[in-house]
Each structure stands twice: as C-alpha cells, then as structure tokens.
C-alpha cells in the first residue's frame, strides 16, 4: 500500500517537473542546432566568472536580470557601461539613471575586449543550451527504495516462531487424531522405516543428545550475542533531516571543500554544523538548482521543484526575503538531526584528527560526496577506534611538537615509524575523562 502511494506521488512529481522543464526550455533557452555553441560556451564562461555573483539571466539579484538585455539596450551602450560604468555615467544621463537601480555600484571591467562582451551578450540572448528531450527518458530514472522495515533479526525470529508454531499444531493434530481412535498408519516404505529407526537410535544415544544440546546452545548464544552487541551501534543511521540537503550536490558535484562549511573541524573538537549564514554565502545568489537536478531523498526522487523549495527553507531560516533581496531579521534556526553521536563518556576531537593527524574526512564518514542523504558510515565503536589507532603510523616529522619525541625514540629503539598506540593512543584516559 505504502509503496504504491509513494510511487504515484513520485510520478506526479516527475510529471510536474517535466512540464516545468519544458516551459523553461522555451523561455530563455535554445536548442543546440540554432546556436553557435562555441560562442555561447565562451560567453557563459565569462558570465559565470564575472557577472554571476550579481546577475542572473531570468531573475534580478543584486543587479537586474540580464536575459535578452540586448533587446532593452543598445550594444554600444552596454559596452561602454560594462567597461567602466562610473565614467560612462558622467557623460550619459541615461546611464546615470540606470545606476540608481541599486545602491551597490557595479564594478568596472576594463579588461574585457569588445569580443568578450559580445560573447557574454550572446550568451544572455541565447541562454542555456538544452538537448531535445527524448520522450520517456524522465520516467526511467524513477527508483523507489524499499521502505525500511523491521530489522533482520526480528524477521528471523518471527520466522522461527512460525515454524515452531506449525510444528506444534502438527503434533497437536496428530494427537487429536490419535485420541479420536485413528491408529497409526502402517509403515509403508523401507526408507521411512529406516528413518524412524535412526530417530529412535538418536533418541536413545545420550552422547548425541548432549552434543545436539550444546550445538543448539552455541548457535543460540551466537545469535543472542550478535543481537545484543548491535544495541547502541547506529551504523547506517539515516534520520530524516528538516531540509533535503544533498552532500552529493555540494561536495561531489560542486567540489566544495568539506571544511568550507564544517570549518570548526580544524580548530575544535566539533566539526560543527554550519550556521545558516555560511549557507547564505552562496545561496544568496543561488535561489534555485540547475535544470534536471535530482536527488534521492528518503526513498523519493526530488526534482528541481522540490529542491527549490528546500532552498526556500534555508531562506526562511536565515530570514532572507528572496523577493526584495533583504534580510528581514526573522530568523528560525534549523533543527538538524544529529547523526554521529558518541556517548558522553567518550571524548573525541576533530582537530586532533583533521589538523594534526591529517586524516581525510572520508576515512570515518565514508564517501560523503556520493551521498545524497547523509548516514552514519562507520560503526563508531571503541573497537573501531582502537583498531585504527593500532594500525596508523604517526607522521612525526614536520611537526615541531614531535621533534624531540622522534629524536628520543629513534635514539632509543632505532625506529622511524611508530603507531598511535605506541605513542599512548590506547590509554583509557586519552578518550575517557
């Protein structure tokens, strides 16, 4: 039931996003066969590097939307404006008026040649190049993840319970039929008789009985231990977050450094969830995702429409009025759900590992750049920590702190490399206080 509902919702989402996609395709986009792709590419490159922090094609940002700007202004006017708008304002009344658009003055770009500017303007005219959509393509990507259900062990347990119940019913039925007076049916085949004799033989043999009991107990203990051991280990923990934030888009596709957002990892014990103002560094200019962006989130595929709504949630948290491009001051902190939880009695310090040890984030957090939805990759058990401390060599060179220790160790044992464990990294008090 649930999966059907989910499926239909997904389909509708996909259809909607597809129509939207078509709509935009006709507004400021062109199909590849009509445009000079090389020129468009050149213009796009310049636009992204120089203009995009203040301008968009279809929306106003700090400056006005630039899609089809050549229809509104003459080419020569635009060139003069772009090269040095301040000087141009002095000689052109129209330009002086245009400068009133925003309190922020536009930079001068004297380095751009006429050709450069023409390329940029070309790009503003033709916009993005879209491949012709192939019918049915969108539907293929639909993938419905199985809703996470009961844990495995429970299923095994229930199955075992059902088998036992069946056996009990069967034996009850047999007894009932025997009580009713039905005699045991005659033994028909030799095989059956042999089996029955074997069973009787086994029943009489105490050794085999003891062996069987031990076996059953051991198997039972194995499963009980395994079950109990996994209590409190949240490997794979993937709670539902308030905002569908995809690490894959940010870290994987856009190659944003982990520590751009998690900046305290290099200074502090906490890696730190970035404050909303860090999001706004980029998202002030990025109100929507690119066409065709999709992520897998909580078993559903989120397309552009949903993702744009997610960005709107960031704006709401930051108190950013996307219409008027101003902060309202009405801030609502985002309540993320913490994934990696260590117990209070364990002390862990990110800076020690990131700054001093030079450990890559992925070592513990897994391929975050491939995760749309973040989950706990490592078990975060003490055994897991200890293991790494046993195996990892400490780079004693290049850090003056270790200089003397290295000298003394080399002097004493003639060793070049020591593990963290050998430096005292297994002592209880190093993590428990």
């Amino acid at each position, binding site marked *: 039931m649930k999966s059907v509902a989910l499926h239909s919702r997904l389909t509708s989402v996909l259809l909607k996003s597809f129509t939207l996609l078509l709509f935009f395709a006709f507004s400021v986009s062109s199909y590849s066969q009509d445009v000079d792709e090389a020129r468009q590419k050149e213009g796009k490159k310049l636009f992204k590097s120089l203009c995009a922090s203040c301008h968009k094609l279809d929306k106003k940002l700090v400056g006005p939307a630039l899609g089809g700007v050549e229809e509104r202004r003459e080419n020569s006017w635009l060139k003069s404006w772009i090269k040095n708008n301040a000087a141009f304002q002095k000689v052109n009344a129209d330009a002086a008026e245009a400068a009133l658009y925003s309190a922020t003055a536009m930079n001068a770009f004297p380095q751009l040649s006429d050709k450069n500017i023409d390329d940029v303007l070309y790009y503003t005219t033709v916009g993005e190049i879209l491949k012709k959509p192939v019918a049915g393509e969108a539907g293929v990507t639909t993938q419905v993840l199985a809703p996470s259900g009961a844990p495995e062990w429970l299923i095994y347990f229930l199955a075992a319970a059902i088998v036992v119940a069946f056996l009990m019913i069967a034996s009850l039925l047999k007894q009932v039929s025997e009580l009713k007076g039905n005699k045991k049916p005659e033994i028909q085949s030799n095989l059956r008789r042999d089996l029955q004799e074997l069973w009787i033989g086994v029943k009489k043999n105490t050794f085999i009985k003891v062996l069987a009991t031990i076996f059953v107990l051991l198997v039972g203990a194995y499963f009980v231990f395994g079950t109990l051991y996994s209590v409190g280990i949240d490997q794979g923990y993937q709670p539902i977050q308030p905002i569908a934030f995809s690490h894959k888009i940010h870290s994987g596709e856009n190659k944003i450094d982990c520590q751009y957002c998690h900046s*305290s990892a290099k*200074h*502090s*014990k906490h890696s730190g969830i970035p404050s*909303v103002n860090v999001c706004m560094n980029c998202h002030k200019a990025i109100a929507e995702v690119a066409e065709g962006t999709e992520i897998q989130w909580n078993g559903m595929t989120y397309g552009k429409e949903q993702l744009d709504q997610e960005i709107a949630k960031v704006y709401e948290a930051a108190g950013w009025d996307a219409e008027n491009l101003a902060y309202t001051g009405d*801030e609502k902190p985002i309540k993320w759900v913490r994934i990696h939880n260590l*117990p209070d009695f364990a002390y862990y310090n990110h800076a020690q590992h990131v700054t001093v040890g030079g450990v890559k984030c992925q070592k513990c957090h897994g391929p975050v750049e491939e995760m749309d939805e973040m989950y706990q990759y490592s078990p975060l058990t003490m055994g897991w920590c200890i293991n790494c401390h046993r195996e990892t060599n400490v780079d004693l060179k290049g*850090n*003056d702190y270790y200089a003397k220790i290295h000298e003394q160790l080399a002097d004493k044992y003639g060793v070049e490399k020591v593990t963290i464990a050998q430096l005292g990294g297994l002592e209880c008090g190093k993590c428990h*206080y």
Partner: protein
Amino acid sequence: MASSKKYWKSVEELKGSSVVETLNKNEFVENIATDDFLGDKETLENSSTTRRDFLKYVGFTTAAASLAACEGPVVKSIPYVVKPNDIIAGVPDWYATSMADGYDFANILVKTREGRPIQIMPNKEANGTTSARVQAAVLSLYDEKLRLKEPTKNGTAISWGAADKEITQKLNDLKEAGKQVVLLTGTMASPSTDKVVNEFLITYPNAKHVIYDAISEAGALDAFQATYGKRALPNYKLENAETIVSFGADFLGDFHGGFEKAYVNGRKPETGKMSYHVQLESNMSLTGANADKRITAKPSDLVFGLINLYNAITKEGVASKATPLDVEIQKIAKTLRKAGSKGVVMTGINDVNAQLISLAINKALNSEILDPKNSLNIRQGNFNQVQELVSDMKSGKVGGILAINVDPSYSLPNATEFSEALKNVDLKVALSVENNATVDAMDYALPAPHFLESWGDTHFSEGNYGLIQPTIQPLFKTRQIQDTLLKWSGNTTFYYDYLKFFWGTDVLEGSSWNKALHNGFYQKTIAVTEASVESPATVSIADAARILKTITTPSAMELSLYTKTGLGDGKQANNPWLQEFPDPITRASWDNYLTMSIPDARALGFSNPVKDNGAINGDYAKVSVNGKEVVVPVMIQPGQANGSVGLALGFGKTFGLKEEMQVGVNAYPLYKGGNSIQYNVAIEKVVGTHKFACTQVQKTIAGRHDILKVASLKEYKNVDPKDHHHGWNKPAYVSYDHKEVEANTIDLWDEHNRDIGHHFNLSIDLTSCTGCGACVVACHAENNVPVVGKNEVRIGRDMHWLRIDRYYSSKVETRAEAKELGLGIAETYQVLETEAENPEVTFQPMMCQHCNHAPCETVCPVAATTHGRQGQNQMTYNRCVGTRYCANNCPYRVRRFNWFSYANNNEFDFNMNNEYGKMVLNPDVVVRSRGVMEKCSMCIQMTQATILKAKKEGRKVNTDEFETACSSACTTGALVFGDVNNKEDEVAALAEDKRAYNVLDYLQTKPNVVYQVKVRNTNEA
C-alpha cells in the same frame, strides 16, 4: 623534629577515642544497611509487596529497561543562524574582566564555552587573586531561583517603559515636595558609577547617597580618614615585611582581602628570609592558622594589648589596663622595634580608636609596609549613615528609597526596625541582581544584570583601575543599574558609551581603550603628593585610648563575630558550591556554629561526640547579647581563646533560598553597631542535638605517620635535610633482610619507563598554602564535581576531588611522650588537652597522588583504573563497575564513590538539577553516573588541550604552559603543575628540591604529587 610529631585532626582523635580509631581503619564508614531491613522481620512481614510481586516488578523493570535501550534517542543539533566570529563551538574563549559585588572585588579571567561563562580564574597579569567565593560566583550567575527575571511592581510584571515613567514621575513629585530620596548602595568602587550617581544627585538635589556594607569596616575607614585625609582602607606591602603583628586582623581571610599573594611572597624560605608573623586573636582564623606564632586572647584583652603595644613602642603612657598578654606584648614590641620600618601592625577591631592606635604604632615604627598612597577603595560603607537613614525613615523624613544590590532587611542588626521604618516611605524601588527580603519589601523590583553580564569599571586601589565586560548575553530581562539611573537623570546616553567616554577622559591617559578592555585592567601612576596624604588635623592617641578604655567592658564571656571563608557576608548563600565548601579550620560545611574553647566547653557542659559513621553532633547553646538571643550549635575549637566564643555572620538567610540552603543561624541581630566584638555574652545550654556535616574525622590517613613535614627556618638553613638524626626531610627507611635500608631501594613493582614525552608532576608548597580553598571550588567548576548536600557530607560521602586537610599539632605530641614524662592517664589527658588549646595548624591539600606504583590499579578487577604514560592515574568511569576495591586500597583516601546519580535527581536539587545551573558544566568533562568511582584526573582534559594546541601550531609545549584547575586558581603559587621531563619547567626543579617529599613515602607508591616541607619562621635567634 618533624617525623616524631603527632598530627591530629580533631580533639577526639587526640584523646585516642576508640570511635576515631575505628574510623581510621574503615574506608567506608557507612555500612550498607542490608542487615537493617533484612533483619527486621516485622517490617518485612508487614510489607505489602510479596515476594512474587517483587519478582514481577523486577522482571517488568528489566524488560522495560532493555526495550528502552534498544532505541537510541534522537539528538537535535541546532547551529547558529549567524555565527559570531569569535565563537568556535568547542573552543573556549577567555575574557578579562572584574568582579565587584559589594563584598568581593577581584581582577578575573572568565572562561566561556559557546557563550556561557563556566569558570573564573585570577587575572594574574593584573595581580588578581581569587578566593573560594570569587571562583564560585560563576554559579550564582545561573541562580534561576534567586535572580530577578523581569521588572515587577508589587509582584506583578510591568514593562521597563512603564516603570521608568511612574518612577520618574514620583521622583519629580518628591523633588517638588522637597522630601528626601535615598540611594542605598553597597560599596561599588566604580568611578564611572560614582559619576552616574553624581548626575542623579544633581538632577534630584533632594537625593542622598548612603553606602552600606553588611560587614562594616567603618572604624578602619574613619581612622584612615582622620590620619591621612581620605576615607579608604590602608594597603600593606606585606612582601617586604620583616615582622607582621596582627591583632585579630584576618587578612588572609576576609579582612579587606587580597593580601595572601604579598604575604606569601614575603615568606619564601629559598631566599633565606621570611617575615615573622605574630597573630593575636580570639577565634582561630585562617590567618592565625598560618601565623608563626599565635597567641590567644579574649577580645577585650586584644584591645588593651593593642594600647599596651602602643605604649611599649612609643614609651608613652596612654590610658590602658594590664592584660595577661603583656609579657608577650613586650616581646612583640622588641621584635617590632628591631624590624623598624619593616615591621607592621594591623588590627581587625572595627573601632575607629583601635584603628587610630594601630595606624599610630605604624607611624611610630616609621613603617614602610603600610602604604597610605595606594589605599584601598573596596569598603566605603558608613554604618552611622545607615542608622541615621533608619531613624529618618521612621520619622517620615524620607520620601523615596532606591535600594541597589543591598539587603539590609537581612543583614542589619536592627533589620526588623528597618523593615518597619520602610513602610513610611512613599517610593520604594529596588534595583537588584537577586531577590531578597529587602527587594520583597519594595514596590518596584527592577532586575539588574549579574557582573558577568554587565559593563562597568572598578577602582580597587588608588592605582588599579579595572574594566567589567559582559561574557554572556543577559539571561533575563535585566537593565544595567547605571543605564537606569542615567535614564532617570534625563541623560539618554547608554552606559556603555558613557563608560567609554569617561575612561577616555578620566582614566586612560591617552592609552588605548581596546587594550585596556583586552587586559581587563589599567595601571595608573599614583599622583598623590605627600602633603595630601597627611591629615591636616593631628590625632590625639591619648583621647582615642581613653575612649577605647571606656567602651571596652571586659566580661566573663565575649563574642567575636566573623565571616567564613566560604560564605562571607552571606550574599552567595544560595550557592551550593560555597555551602558544601568545608570551612578551612573546622572542616564543617553547611553550617555556622558557636566556636568555643576546650575548657569553656568542659565548664559549660558542651561536647562534640563523634558517631560511629564519622558524623559529629553538637549541643545547642542560647547566646544572649544586648537583649538579643539566638540558639546555635556549639563546635569545640582548639585555639579558641578562653572566655570567648565565635560565631559566623552570613548564615541563616531564608528569603527565596532553596530549602537545602536555608542552613545555619542568622547572627546579624547580634552585630550591634557594626562591631564584631560584643561584650557581656550569656551562654546557656539548651536541649537538642545538632547534626553537623563535618569532615574533620573522615578521610583520615589510617593513622599513618610522615604525612606532614615541618621545619623551622633555622633548621632549614642550617641542618642537612637528610641528616639521620636531625634531618627535617629524612627519607623513609624500611627493614629489608633484617637491615634498615632506604625505602626507595626496594620495590614490589617494575619501574615504568618515563623518559619519552611528558611526565606530569604537581608540586604543593605547604609553606605557601594558606588553606584558602580557592582550588577546591576551581576543581568543582572544572571537573563537574557534584554537590551532595548536608546529609551526605555528614556521613562522609562528599565528592570533593581535592580537599584541604587541616592538621593540628602541639609541643607535647604523643601519649608516649607523656608516658615518658611519667604522667598518669588523667594527667596525660590534661597535658595533651592544655597543649591542644592552642595548637599549631598546618594545611595540606590532598588529592589523588597519581602514584606511579598505584595500589588502586593493582586491585581493580576490571582494569577501570590504569596508568598513563604521562604519569596520570586514569579513571575510566564507563569501565568501572563500582567494587570500590580501589578506594579501599588507597592509602591517601582520595577516591570518591557516586552513591547516587547527582544530576537530574530531585533528591539532590542543586545546580545539576536545573536547566540554568547545568549551563556551568564543563562540556569537556563527563558528568559521572551512579555507582562509579571518581577522583582527581590531574585535569587530563587541560593537559590534553594544551598538547593539542601545541600540535596544531606545530611547536613544542612552552614551559609553564601546562596547568591544572587548582594550580591556575592558586594565587600564592603553592600549587605548581608541569612536565618534569622538560628540565626548564619550574616543577622539574621543585621535584628535586631539598624540601620535596612524598606523602607516605615508605609505602613506595611513588606519587606524582610532590609536597614541599612547610617552613615556619619561629624567630629563633
């Protein structure tokens, strides 16, 4: 000779009480009471829970607990919307600021985590010191029970705007009617606030500023004014002193405060010079405990003794009276004359005449120690003006009163009279941080921010200016008092701008504001000319002595009121850290009591029986003075002068306090005339038994010897410390193969290799330790040590990781010695007791010794306590199963067991049981759960943080960068922490010093805590 000396902690112990003997042997005094309920058949049978029901409950709760454990809680993480630049989650920020709450004044550093202050440390750059109270003040910030949260009018909330409008209206009405308005404040010692107050006084010419200190120093202030022309307290350069004579001035405790650093700097045996300190006093004070020579005297004898000393020094003959002290006084006079300008006399007698005489003696000595130029501004109260205010209110002269952070309804001797008179006042406004009885009696209660939330400045001594800056956003709807007063004076400037402008023009002398704010203080050159220091009018000492003689009425029993190191004047009575802080002398917490000498107690029939669980009981006494009566428990105090009793002020506060904190008896009604000495005291035993929470017979070190080593300065200089016969720091000898060998030559354990990396040692100088206890509270704050409450402390379950043991010793030490003298049993008692009447006192901070060969580690069945390579004995709480074997095997008795869960437990309703109080917890240290052992960790979180900082910056750890909470809190430098593998580190030299020894060294536990032998200047020729 150090090692044969017997040290004892209580009178009971000296008597050889069997109970104390048993207590010595038992680590856990309280048996688990299984026999009580299992042996009681009747109760068992009458119980409504049958065995089957019981099993059902057990089964259900186990199942429920297991089920609950399967599902982890969902933890929310809420980042800032806009992160402040200087806050990095997980990294502490330190701010330099000052504390000035009207009683305690200090230049401090505040440690904040994620915008919450969690610890106060002395600002050593500014010469700042902290006491237990200053350390604990950070917890008072989070006192949600007592702090005022919003402006109220007669109990109902009112907006600031409305309150401003109504009050200014009334103030103007009163101005037109010409009725007096009184601004009643404590000592603020804030020049900018003085200016704000002046503006107010100019706007309302009918207004008057009255300063009220709960503990009056008016006598000293007036005497200083009469002699030097300024109403301030004299400052003393004790570091240069050769001879210090103090007549009841507890200058290491609460007399003016802040002298311990200078005092200890003048007493460094390494320099070969130590000041000689004689203390004459009635109560056993912290200062007396530290003195080289302590002379007990009744208060009246102190007064006449002081006059006699004046006569002896100046050879004058002003009016006086002979006292039993006179022989000693002559000796003191001789010593003082010898010291000449390096000698100083102080007195704690709060009487203008006594103070005049004391100043005159110093003048006669030409004392350089008394520094009149750098006078202290930290007490400005005028007791007479306050009394005048009460009578003015009574007669209806006063139309309005603005009470600012004062509580006269609690702390005035005539508090009821004040409260009655208050009813005659039209406009009653309280501006206060905390709610109290006075605030409650006012019409308007306007909340003020705590000093950790405020802007402000201080002016403690003539040259020392300090700044106060906020370290947290205001928790409640508070407004600074200065802002309020400015507003009411019609000045629209914000106080912050006002302060900055004021400092720019009046203080900084062109220096940078930002720099001063960063440092927290500004040292100004004192521009006082000699002429202005000297008073125009000459003071007649003969007159002073005459008056003094008439007002001093010696009587059979005299009372000395004093303030305790923990609670002071009672401002922070709702602070659980201070309530649980054991008094340095009596080792009692959660109480005040009448201290009484041993003979007086015997004569009046008082006793302090020790119960078999280590708890002490006491009898009640009815104390009547000047028609006022209080009933207090009696604590027998060795060293109390015969014919005198002592009682601490600052207790018995009830208004608004948590029930647990409403302890002790309010002694302020006896504080007549703001004079701590009261004559004609009647004491009568009344029925009832008081249960003390006193740790003095608990945690004794199993009767073992060589805990303390003390030498005289002469011995220190002339005798080889290791001399077999006369050595004062002899190594321990043990018998091995029937031969006596040095204990450190044989060992049960294999030696650890400690050459590589850090190896931490803590050195504790018993000469420098004054026993002030700032370290005890610092340890509480740093390590989230729980408060357990009076009943638990009583039965020896206190959780202090660091305690300061107080040992008494006297000349005839042991019963064996008495036997040698051929004394019978009865005579032995008598001799021992007489000696016990004025014993020598030695303080010894005691915490986990971090033994390299730790007895606790060997016996732990689960390896929860293990040894670190850096020297720490590490305690892994999550591994501990609570067998308590370790505590049983610890010869130092420093391990503490969590009998209960002290956090989130209504039975222990202290700071860990409310949302505000929890904000003071140190996030780097776990809050321990029930059933585990805990103990001093040598602040491993701090050493780890220091190491990490160095690693991140790719450098070696600097010398003296390593600190523990106790060592950074220690003002006198008694506690020094560091790395002995770094030869440049101070502690490396200290560990090898000739004074260095380990406690119980014959056990060969090889502790990483090193003690330095206490050296006393016995002033032998």
